[in-house]
């Protein structure tokens, strides 16, 4: 029984929800699809890490899940919500928060306003948003300030983004993503532009603060995947079958990873898993 509808917020609060995604992508100017009949499941409250070489379609998949349509007519993405065994087709665009590699902070707003970006963008035209003291607004503001405080950004709340360091900017972006409070969080290499220390800290923060969400984390960093992944999916290597016209059945490679809680500390065991994962990414059976 497939009913197309938008997911309402009340329903997605339900903890038993998981999403099944089936997608195909073919760019308009190419005959060969990037992937065909890709299937993946996003279980509730789980970090799903997507790995693969650049150009394999990781970001495109994220965009498809978000509902951005930039492929050709042969592209499609069907999202099925599974709620206590009841299956229905949904569009996720209303229940997604998105975090990209660039922090995408608006330079004309300060950190606090950037965290409250969603409210700022959707308010009516002649709304004096800075001076509003209505109760709901104040609560949101307090929540935003609390998030900034949790992320260690108290002093930065009223500063403009161009006065902040790269790590602080990305933390503000994380606060903005958390403020949206959506059940699904898509992250496209969010920590790739950071130095090692900031990346490590932000991975910890993300794991802690996004524990309630279904997270899809696109990354090319094997260590990041092993630290945070509760489901790791590696895009298959397409290099070997470029000449053949027959499309192989698309299937993710699922490497093994530790079963411990995230964020996992970096130690020798993690290193072994990382080495195995890198091996899996290098030589993948088709």
């Amino acid at each position, binding site marked *: 029984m497939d009913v197309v509808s938008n997911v309402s917020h009340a329903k997605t609060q339900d903890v038993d929800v998981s999403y099944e995604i089936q997608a195909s992508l073919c760019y308009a100017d190419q005959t060969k699809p990037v992937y065909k009949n890709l299937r993946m499941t996003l279980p509730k409250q789980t970090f799903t890490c997507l790995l693969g070489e650049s150009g394999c379609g990781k970001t495109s998949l994220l965009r498809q899940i978000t509902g951005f349509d930039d492929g050709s007519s042969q592209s499609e993405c069907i999202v099925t919500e599974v709620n206590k065994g009841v299956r229905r087709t949904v569009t996720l*665009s209303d229940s997604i928060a998105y975090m990209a590699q660039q922090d995408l902070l608006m330079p004309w707003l300060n950190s606090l306003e950037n965290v409250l970006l969603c409210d700022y963008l959707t308010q009516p*035209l002649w709304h004096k948003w800075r001076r509003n003291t209505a109760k709901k607004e104040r609560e949101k503001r307090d929540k935003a300030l609390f998030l900034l405080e949790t992320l260690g950004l108290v002093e930065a709340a009223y500063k403009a983004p161009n006065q902040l360091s790269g790590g602080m900017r990305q933390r503000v972006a994380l606060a903005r993503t958390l403020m949206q409070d959506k059940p699904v969080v898509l992250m496209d290499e969010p920590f790739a532009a950071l130095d090692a220390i900031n990346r490590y800290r932000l991975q910890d923060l993300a794991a802690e603060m996004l524990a309630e969400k279904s997270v899809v984390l696109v990354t090319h960093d094997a260590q990041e995947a092993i630290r945070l992944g509760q489901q790791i999916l590696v895009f298959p290597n397409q290099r070997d079958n470029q000449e053949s016209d027959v499309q192989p059945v698309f299937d993710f490679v699922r490497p093994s990873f530790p079963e411990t809680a995230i964020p996992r500390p970096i130690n020798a065991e993690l290193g072994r898993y990382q080495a195995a994962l890198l091996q899996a990414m290098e030589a993948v059976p088709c």
Partner: protein
Amino acid sequence: MLAIFRLRRASSLNLIRLMVIVAALLFAWWALVFITNVPHFILPAPQRVFVTLWELRSLLFSHFLVTLLEIVGGLMLGVILGFLFAINMQLFRLVRLWLLPVLLFSQAVPVFALAPILVLWLGYGMFSKVVMAAIIIFFPVLMTCFDGLRNTPTGYLDLAKTMNVKPWQMVWRIRFPAALPVIASGLRMAVVVAPIGAIIGEWVGSGAGLGYYMLHSNARMQVAEMFAALLVLACLSISLYYLADWLLKKWIPWGQG
């Protein structure tokens, strides 16, 4: 603290540089008159111009006020119209498709040719000059604004799309602020060009204003008076530019590289 100090130092250096340039130009002017010994009704010496300027200060000031009002009015009208057209062109595909050729065509008509008609239609008063200045700055403002609105970083747009943003909110809350640094360069251009429009309007037909006064002095062979008016006009244009530049830098601090 250090940043403020550096800023002060940079701006005082700029001021010194400006003064040196002005002094050098004045000296060259004086030397030219001194060496060639041209009669004062062809090229008056700078000191003669300054004396005239001082003697006629109240008269020149009244003309200055008229021209200033015309320029400011023209700037406001042209900028508001430019923004409105650009935003609507961004919002509505049909407006964009039908208006762009018309606007390009309108730019093929020289503004000088329009001036007599505008004076005929709108009268000898200030309004025809305001419209003239507005017309001359409308196109640069419109085009820079439109280009800025079109070239919003796709990341901002994608982020906004995940937040259920309406089209007008996208334009007004994302595209427009993101375009401000580009728009600012259009505004700087507009501030420099707007006086030209006002002066052309005054030349074609008016009863007051620096352009009118220059034409009038020229007819009476009072070249020193003409130069005095010209000097006032140049100072006005330069001050307007620096004022606009300062305001834009203050309001758009993120647009400076």
